[in-house]
């Protein structure tokens, strides 16, 4: 076994040193009736060459976005990843190290996380950020739990324009504790403010929306924020970090907790993970925050250094009273996000956001011109928009696939009221040529109806 340095000779000598006659004796403390004697039913070992070939074959059974043109978003996005990001996260010193418990030999990871935290604050306009959560959905669930802790309240209002899976996750996290989650209906694709104003009261720990929302639309975040704060509820918002290249950051509209999916910040779509949830809030809530935090401090010679800090919030110290049970997070993905945000920088992120905005609007306008296709909602959008199709979206997507295009997401699955709704995403990677081809295909489909 080439991953195991011990040779047969080593094993014999080591057993001798500990006074045992056989490896089996090392397992004599396991009751005989549960010891396995036959090999497990697993495939026999693949050599490296066979393994690579097998993996390539598995890969060939998947459509990958180098070969297919992707107009699908809905929580995972085909954004461009600069080579520098991949280069840095593939540095063995980063990816083969553990959580930086020993600060003196982990300054690389620690400083990078500190930079990540700062970058997330700069991006969101919030005061503090943790070192990452599992993903956008679980980050939102943690935000909701924290809202309850902070306010001592037990009711939540979740907009129906939140990603359906995010709502599911929040609800799952609430199953064990007595907090009630109520969904806010939507009108014209946006969180229904009238309903919200009516139902909101001082039992509500937080109002939770996504911005831009699942349909791609910009929510009335300023107003929702004010409405929520009026009753002392927190305003929790889940945002697309790319949109923050041009959109007002949560800090400016007084969000109390801003979370979101960090995949778009330099992480591959990777069939859904590993991603990272970012989590930012107000300084005064810091001791209520879930997740790891890195802080700057000094050593005895006054040199700046970084350490894990405020660990008394965490499970390994506080145990049942911890602010979360999270231990391993998504550190390497956070590193990717830090490198991405540094590489794009002030100008770059704005440019990417502008490209998304313009291309999405170009695609939307061209689609809206087609016979049978019409916008599902009239609101302002960023990089995703919803259209109503002249025929069933699954059929449309089937046709598109033949042209190696992955079409929009069929809304019907989560929103049965939009039988023919299609959620289309256009990132900066889509060229005009690709968009034109996509629209042209839609045109043909429309005309065949």
């Amino acid at each position: 076994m080439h991953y195991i340095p011990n040779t047969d000779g080593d094993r014999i000598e080591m057993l001798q040193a500990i006074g045992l006659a056989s490896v089996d004796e090392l397992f004599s403390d396991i009751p005989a009736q549960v010891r396995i004697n036959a090999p497990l039913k697993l495939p026999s070992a693949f050599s490296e060459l066979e393994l690579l070939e097998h993996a390539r074959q598995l890969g060939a059974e998947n459509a990958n976005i180098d070969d297919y043109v992707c107009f699908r978003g809905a929580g995972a996005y085909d954004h461009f990843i600069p080579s520098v990001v991949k280069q840095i996260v593939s540095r063995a010193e980063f990816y083969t190290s553990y959580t930086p418990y020993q600060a003196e030999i982990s300054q690389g990871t620690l400083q990078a996380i500190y930079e990540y935290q700062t970058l997330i604050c700069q991006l969101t306009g919030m005061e503090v950020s943790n070192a990452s959560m599992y993903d956008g959905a679980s980050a939102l669930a943690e935000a909701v739990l924290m809202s309850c802790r902070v306010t001592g309240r037990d009711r939540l209002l979740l907009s129906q324009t939140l990603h359906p899976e995010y709502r599911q996750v929040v609800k799952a996290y609430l199953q064990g504790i007595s907090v009630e989650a109520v969904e806010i209906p939507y009108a014209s694709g946006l969180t229904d403010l009238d309903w919200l104003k009516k139902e909101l009261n001082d039992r509500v720990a937080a109002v939770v929306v996504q911005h831009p929302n699942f349909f791609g639309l910009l929510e009335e975040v300023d107003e929702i924020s004010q409405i929520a704060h009026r009753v002392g509820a927190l305003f929790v918002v889940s945002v697309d970090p790319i949109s923050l290249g041009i959109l007002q950051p949560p800090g400016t509209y007084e969000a109390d907790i801003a979370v979101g999916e960090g995949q778009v910040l330099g992480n591959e779509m990777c069939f859904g993970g590993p991603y990272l949830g970012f989590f930012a809030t107000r300084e005064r809530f810091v001791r209520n925050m879930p997740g790891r935090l890195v802080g700057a401090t000094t050593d005895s010679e006054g040199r700046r250094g970084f350490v894990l800090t405020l660990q008394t919030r965490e499970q390994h110290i506080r145990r049942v009273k911890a602010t979360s049970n999270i231990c391993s997070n998504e550190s390497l993905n956070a590193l990717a996000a830090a490198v991405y945000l540094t590489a794009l920088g002030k100008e770059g992120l704005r440019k990417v956001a502008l490209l998304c905005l313009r291309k999405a609007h170009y695609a939307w306008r061209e689609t809206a011109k087609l016979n049978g296709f019409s916008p599902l909602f009239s609101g302002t959008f960023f990089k995703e928009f919803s259209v109503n199709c002249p025929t069933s979206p699954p059929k449309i997507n089937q046709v598109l696939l033949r042209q190696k295009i992955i079409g929009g997401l069929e809304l019907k699955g989560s929103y049965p009221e939009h039988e023919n709704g299609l959620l289309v995403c256009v990132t900066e990677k889509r060229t005009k040529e690709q968009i034109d081809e996509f629209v042209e295909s839609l045109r043909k489909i429309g005309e065949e109806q």
Partner: protein
Amino acid sequence: MREKLVFEISKKGRVGVSLPRCDVPEEEPERLIPERCLRKDLPLPELSEPEIIRHFTRLSQLNYAVDTGFYPLGSCTMKYNPRVNEEIASLPGLARLHPYQPEELCQGALRLMYELGEYLAQIGGMDAVTLQPAAGAHGELTGMLIIRAYFLSKGQKRHKVIIPDSAHGTNPASAALCGYQAVEVKSDKKGCVDIGELNKLVDDDVAAIMLTNPNTLGLFEGNILEIAAIVHRAGGLLYCDGANLNALLGVARPGDMGFDLLHFNLHKTFSTPHGGGGPGSGPLGVKKALAPFLPVPLVVKQGKRYLLNYNCLLSIGKVRSFYGNFGVLVKAYAYLLSLGSEGLRQVAENAVLNANYLMNRFKDHYHLPYDRICKHEFVLSGARQKKRGIRALDIAKRLIDYGFHPPTIYFPLIVNEALMIEPTETESRQTLDRFADALIKIAGEDVKTLKSAPHHTPVGRLDEAAAAREPNLRWKK
């Protein structure tokens, strides 16, 4: 060799990446988005590409890592991360997939998930597996939610979860997160669950017992069958924290011992790299009776096709978006295939052999609170050294001077000045000996040398108290 922050390197006007020109009409954003929604200022840093690469490369060099040295961090199974797994996980056909792409266009990915689930079920002795949890603690939460749903489905609402005093912090935290009262059971003199105590604690309000086996002392719970009988008799379930599964691979299966649920730490046992703190992956296996409660979707096989099944009425729902940390799953899958069933057992055998060999070398130099055959790890106590004023922390820091990553310290909580050492199977005897020599030498070193360690790192011991008192969690101008 310390490094400035990116913000301190930043200079107005520098760009780090070249982006495509806009090939569609360049409308002003104000025409597409109401002005009040547009941000005025984006205070991100500005660096050129060479500066970025140099900065992060230099940062990387400030890290210790498995690839640079021995990392005997107890409970963390810092084994070697095979290179081919990285190569495979970055193949475009496996890395560049949209999670919502049509089923017919991700059969390879679904097959991989299906097979990995089957293999893990085999290894753990479980009937069904979800790959959704993103880490061990996430698996625990998922397990707790399933236990709750299971009892609810039987019309029961149990409130307690029993957890040994030696347990990892995530166990009580996960139980609490799910609304359970965590009840602590003491360890006996042998370092295992005190059966007498347990008997007293178990009643029909106990939903489950959460055990780590081998436990955090590196000891196998020899009474596991009796424990299972006690808990099951009271209608409770057994949850296994599988963080220490490395010791049992191919040797014994938690499912056969009576465990009803088991989470796997792919980033420990199954060699996926830890990434400086994540991503991990914490698949959860369950026995048949609990399968209906698993999160959606499950990957199922119909004839030759693989499907995502969302249609599970009793499911707890979802604990994260999509299907789990797929990229991590790929590496664990590749690892399992390169081991095969024979290799799997060799992993356990060598991990346990290495641990016992190493433990044996310390017997005369450090207090060994539980002097019996250990599994994949063992816990020393710095109690003797403490009498001279030397703390476990000092010993740990001094090891850095010798080129080693320190063991886990002060955990488990039941051992005074604990030093928890896990060598893993991927270390050679030579390395174990060099480490043992160093730790033994340290046992006799003078207080001053130890207190001032480490001596050759870019920063010395840092003021953690100050860091917590006045948190500085972000750079400001």
